[in-house]
């Protein structure tokens, strides 16, 4: 598991001109836009615009799901995972460091235009929290739960609701890989019956509930509900700190594209997973924080120019999330653009001869408008 609290080397803290070195003497010093500080807890404004490395084993342990697809492809091609330290992430980390865990959980909503780096900011925060030893409840994309579901079962717990076994079991599997340690420590506080012959007694570790959900896929959504309930009730005790990280939270209050067997549309409340997640995002528990991201790209029935919380969440969602801290994410600043461009050059990602010239760089900056996603898509074929 992750060894939080291990003694990490400190980066050479300096201004723009000097070079930060790796602690492995065999490697030559990396350039200015890299930093060897791979612990997010130690990132400050001096590291802004620089890229830090996450070791590949940690990536597999902390992010079994949740990283954008293009970033996963980039990890495979370059054989390393480099994340840029940006101002919104530093702001969020400062708030989390100074948060009082006795108070009810504070909600943070990361919003911004398309392709500016909201999911990557969320992943940065998730990495920090898992390094600090928090229990991380990371839902990679809430939109996946409200569209394209092949199987919808009527829930056995509540007649009106609908279960999604495939999505629930997939999420449980990934949750198990990322939080093994906590599943042994947290004990259930109530007896749960899964069917005629299966039940989980009081005081059993949560790992058993997860195994039950994975083995009996029909009751996977109920298992998810039980896990969320137990974690929420026990978080105020202080034995662990909880981070609820939801990407695409506007899916919970929008519309779905799913239909029941009689072709009537399904609203999000009628899905067990969404219902339980809504209870999780309410700030009636203490001992942690809720960090969410708005996303227009996966959203249903929302115009593509919408990016503000009010437009994407709608009235219902905005009222439900109401006292939240908004964190806007913008396009790259000139310094961040230089850093990203330098990284692509160093990793030999920009192969075109003209891409190394000043003209090519100016053209890339103009065409992408300093938008991280556009820069990535433009630099692909070059």
């Amino acid at each position, binding site marked *: 598991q992750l060894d939080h609290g291990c003694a990490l080397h400190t980066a050479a803290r300096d201004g723009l001109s000097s070079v930060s070195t790796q602690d492995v003497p065999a490697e030559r010093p990396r350039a200015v836009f890299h930093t060897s500080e791979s612990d997010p807890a130690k990132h400050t404004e001096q590291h802004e615009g620089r890229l830090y490395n996450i070791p590949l084993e940690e990536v597999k342990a902390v992010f079994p799901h949740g990283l954008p697809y293009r970033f996963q*492809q980039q990890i*495979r*091609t*370059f*054989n390393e995972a480099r994340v840029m330290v940006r101002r919104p992430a530093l702001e969020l980390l400062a708030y989390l460091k100074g948060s009082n865990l006795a108070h009810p959980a504070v909600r943070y909503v990361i919003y911004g235009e398309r392709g500016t780096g909201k999911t990557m900011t969320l992943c940065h925060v998730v990495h920090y929290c898992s390094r600090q030893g928090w229990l991380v409840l990371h839902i990679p994309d809430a939109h996946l739960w409200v569209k394209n579901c092949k199987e919808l079962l009527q829930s056995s717990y509540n007649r009106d609701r609908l279960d999604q076994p495939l999505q629930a079991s997939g999420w449980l599997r990934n949750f198990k890989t990322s939080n093994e340690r906590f599943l042994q420590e947290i004990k259930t506080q109530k007896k749960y019956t899964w069917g005629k012959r299966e039940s989980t007694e009081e005081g059993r570790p949560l790992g058993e509930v997860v195994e039950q959900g994975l083995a009996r896929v029909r009751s996977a959504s109920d298992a998810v509900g039980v896990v969320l309930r137990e974690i929420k009730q026990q978080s105020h005790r202080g034995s662990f700190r909880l981070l609820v990280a939801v990407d695409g939270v506007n899916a919970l209050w929008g519309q779905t594209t799913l239909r029941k067997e009689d072709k009537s549309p399904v609203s999000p409340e009628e899905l067990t997973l969404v219902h339980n997640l809504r209870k999780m995002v309410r700030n009636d528990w203490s001992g942690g924080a809720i960090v969410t991201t708005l996303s227009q790209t996966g959203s249903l029935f929302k115009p593509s120019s919408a990016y503000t919380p009010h437009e994407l969440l709608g009235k219902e969602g905005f009222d439900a999330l109401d006292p939240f801290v908004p964190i806007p994410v913008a396009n790259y600043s000139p310094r961040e653009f230089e850093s990203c461009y330098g990284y692509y050059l160093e990793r*030999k*990602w920009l*192969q*075109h*001869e*003209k*891409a190394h*010239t000043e*003209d*090519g760089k100016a*053209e890339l900056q103009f065409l992408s408008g300093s938008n991280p996603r556009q820069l990535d898509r433009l630099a*692909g*074929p*070059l």
Partner: protein
Amino acid sequence: RVMPVRWSRYNPSYLEPEVKKESYQKPLEELTDEEREQMELKAVRPIKAAPPTLSSSVFSDPMISKFTNMMMKSGNKVLARNLMSQTLETIKRKQLEKYHKAPENEKETIECNPYVIFHQALKNCQPIIGLSNITKGGKTYQVPVPLTDNRKRFLAMKWLITECRENKHRRTMMPEKLSQELLLAFNNEGPVIKKKHVLHKMAEANRAYAHFRWW
């Protein structure tokens, strides 16, 4: 939708548009006499509309645009261009993965630039000599005939695209198929190179009829 503005038949007095940035950045004194005359002519004569494929970007390549146009179906240039950029990216990724896994001494031999690979693959696929049907005395003979540069380039691109469209598994995506074919052609292997060799052999076999050609 882009409405065509450029006509196909212009009055001969119309001049071609000049797209390169460098020609406009030269100060007046450095221009030679012909260039000064050209500038004065441009002030009086009308200029043709620039075609949509002409771009002043440093990254534009005429061969790549030709290939994209040949891949295009029913005017869907957006799709063709996306497929082309995905192909170049796939080639780059495959080569970079090989590069990072290779030992130090082999690293220089691996070519990672997708444009270099594309141009070299096309050059390897171009036939040197072609066959043409000539009818003499009621019978049609396949006569070996020299090809122009344009025809060679066209045949190479056509063979690559037809090979990808027809002889592959139905469910593979075009960028994947194309990148595979281009990498094979770069190493002088693969079905397109075979087709070129078959054509050369046929031309060699029909050497006797070469004198039927009258041009």
